[in-house]
């Protein structure tokens, strides 16, 4: 066990994966000499050299497009997109190519690329350094999407992602890159995809979250406990594949559900969770399903704290849900 910040855990995960397998290659903007604008790739160039840590030109199309070619040839590229907000120039390569390569070739051309991207608000980044558009990727068949909220999961999910046979979008909650610290198992620690994590057990309501919303929800749950409401907090951490079993089991016990994310509400991942529950947990439900999310506006700068769900909004939604039925 080593105590690490979340971004250090990402760095450690990359380093260990590169040590374990010479096919693992890192590429992206400013990942080499500069060690990444958030320092997630710090030290990698020095240890592994310029053949394995590639500072690329300013083109996400080129980063993901060339990573796909590397993966087809048999390497295991890990591409960094500097901010999730800048992934759109690569959207065609991700949606049309990466996600569909195995399928369209009838399994002849698996294409395993890990795309890492810091995402989310809370760093005063405004419209273009704050987005949480994970739903675009969750809606894209053929991609896996995971989001750690702790250092241990950051390393464990990243090692799993790099070892996986399918394309993975690995989203890093940059707001808690350094504010969250935790014990990380040494060695080949892996967290399986498709398994949610119970952050705290509770009996009155299930609150689902991921990434930087997990600490927010946890704080809310503590406040709620003080007023006698027992909230179960589930960190989904793997959006695709989703741990439906855990989601349904939790609501089966509590009968109430609140879903929390930073992303805009309309067609966000919270809609998917609510829809799954409205179909499969209908008879357990005692109250309407609430969504606490970013609003359906672009992400603002000066007033980001108005936009972002905070513990207060979670508390209010949980209270309403518990009072409702």
């Amino acid at each position, binding site marked *: 066990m080593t105590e690490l910040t979340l971004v250090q855990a990402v760095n450690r995960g990359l380093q260990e994966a590169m040590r374990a397998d010479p096919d693992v290659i890192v590429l992206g903007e400013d990942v080499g000499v500069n060690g990444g604008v958030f320092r997630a790739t710090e030290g990698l160039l020095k240890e592994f050299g310029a053949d394995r840590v590639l500072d690329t030109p300013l083109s996400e199309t080129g980063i993901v497009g*060339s990573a*796909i*070619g590397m993966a*087809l040839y*048999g390497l295991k590229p890990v591409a960094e997109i500097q901010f999730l907000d800048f992934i759109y120039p690569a959207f065609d390569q991700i949606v049309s*190519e990466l996600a569909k390569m*195995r399928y369209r070739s009838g399994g002849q051309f698996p294409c395993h690329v890990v795309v890492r991207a810091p995402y989310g608000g809370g760093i005063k980044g405004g419209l273009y350094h704050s987005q949480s558009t994970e739903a675009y990727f969750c809606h894209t068949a053929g991609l896996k999407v995971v989001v750690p909220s702790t250092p241990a999961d950051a390393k464990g999910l990243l090692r799993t992602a790099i070892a996986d046979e399918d394309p993975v979008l690995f989203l890093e909650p940059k707001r808690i890159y350094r504010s969250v610290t935790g014990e990380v198992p040494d060695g080949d620690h892996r967290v399986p995809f498709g398994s949610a994590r119970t952050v705290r057990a509770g009996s009155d309501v299930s609150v689902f979250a991921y990434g930087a919303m997990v600490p927010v929800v946890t704080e809310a749950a503590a406040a709620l406990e003080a007023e006698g409401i027992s909230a179960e907090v589930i960190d989904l951490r793997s959006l695709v594949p989703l741990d439906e079993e855990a989601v349904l089991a939790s609501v089966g016990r509590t009968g109430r559900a609140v879903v929390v994310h930073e992303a805009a509400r309309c067609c966000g991942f919270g809609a998917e969770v609510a829809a799954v529950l409205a179909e499969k947990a209908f008879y357990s439900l005692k109250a309407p399903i609430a969504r606490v999310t970013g609003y359906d506006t672009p992400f603002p700068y000066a007033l980001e704290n108005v936009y972002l769900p905070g513990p207060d909004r979670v508390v209010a939604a949980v209270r309403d849900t518990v009072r409702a039925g």
Partner: protein
Amino acid sequence: MAATASRPSAPAPSEDRLGGARLVDAYRAMVLARALDERCLSLQRQGRIGFYAPHAGQEAALVGSALAVAAEDWVFPAYREMTVALVRGASLQAVVDQLFGDAGDLAKGRQMPNHFAFRDQHFVSASSPIGTQIPQAVGAAMAARYRKQAITTITYFGDGATSSNDFHAGLNFAGVFRAPTIFFCQNNEWAISLPRERQTRSSTLAMKAEAYGFPGVVVDGNDVNAVYAAVRAARARAVAGDGPTLIEAQVYRFGPHSTSDDPRRYRADAQVEEARRRDPVARLRAELLAAQLLDEAADAALAEEARTRIGEAIGRAEATPALEPLSIFDDVFAQPTARLAEQRTDCAAHLAPGGRSS
């Protein structure tokens, strides 16, 4: 073409011209390509296949380039390169099964006709979005170099694709990383209804390579040996570590863009007639006859052989069973997720006689 039997013999590393038997091999491949093309157009008209994108007029570019690269090289095609796959040893049957989307299709009927994938031939799965294969070819070339394998990748695309994001990204990465990649642009003068001169104002497409710091060459795409030589030279440069080359093969699309297209809406017949006077198949035929590498009888036999093989392959394809409906759930991921397994079960219930709820 059986998997290996009729594959033209591999070029000697130093060879920079096709001659003798190899030139006849090239011609045979071009005759097959032309015959298959014509046959596919009529299969589509008869409703026996759903779509087709013809390559008539581009045979010398296709065959010349395909013969110039090695079996270890990787091909990143667009959708007019079935002939490249055949030259590399893909079976005619597999090609035809793809067009029919039947159970013999190696890609399990996932894509429209013309979007081939042949793992054994390093012929990467084609897709419809224009240009996306270009940076992929660069990445594969970088990967090969990382593995210290002295191969190249070759990627095919049209004049229209030079406007794509991926062209720009791919060529720029190739220049910066000196990737051993051959960019093979078939400039057939049209991108559906847009003529080349309105696609871009550069004087040639080849000169665009200069913007990325490597050479671009224009080649007469109707001359199989000119194409062959240009690709050989580019390949030699690439494996020597001298980086990429852009080749612009100037050809002409004789037929419609695809079976959904009516070219009379946008171009004059006279232009087509004029281009047909430079027909690459007729040209090579004349050369071979003049060089006495072929006579009329041998030529007729080649044509007949092509027709027969094609007819047999189509016959077999039409006798091949349809794909298993639940196969649509395979290959989304290496292992199906719980959700896909559930959807598969649900779908199976619908497909069962009488349907799910009755």
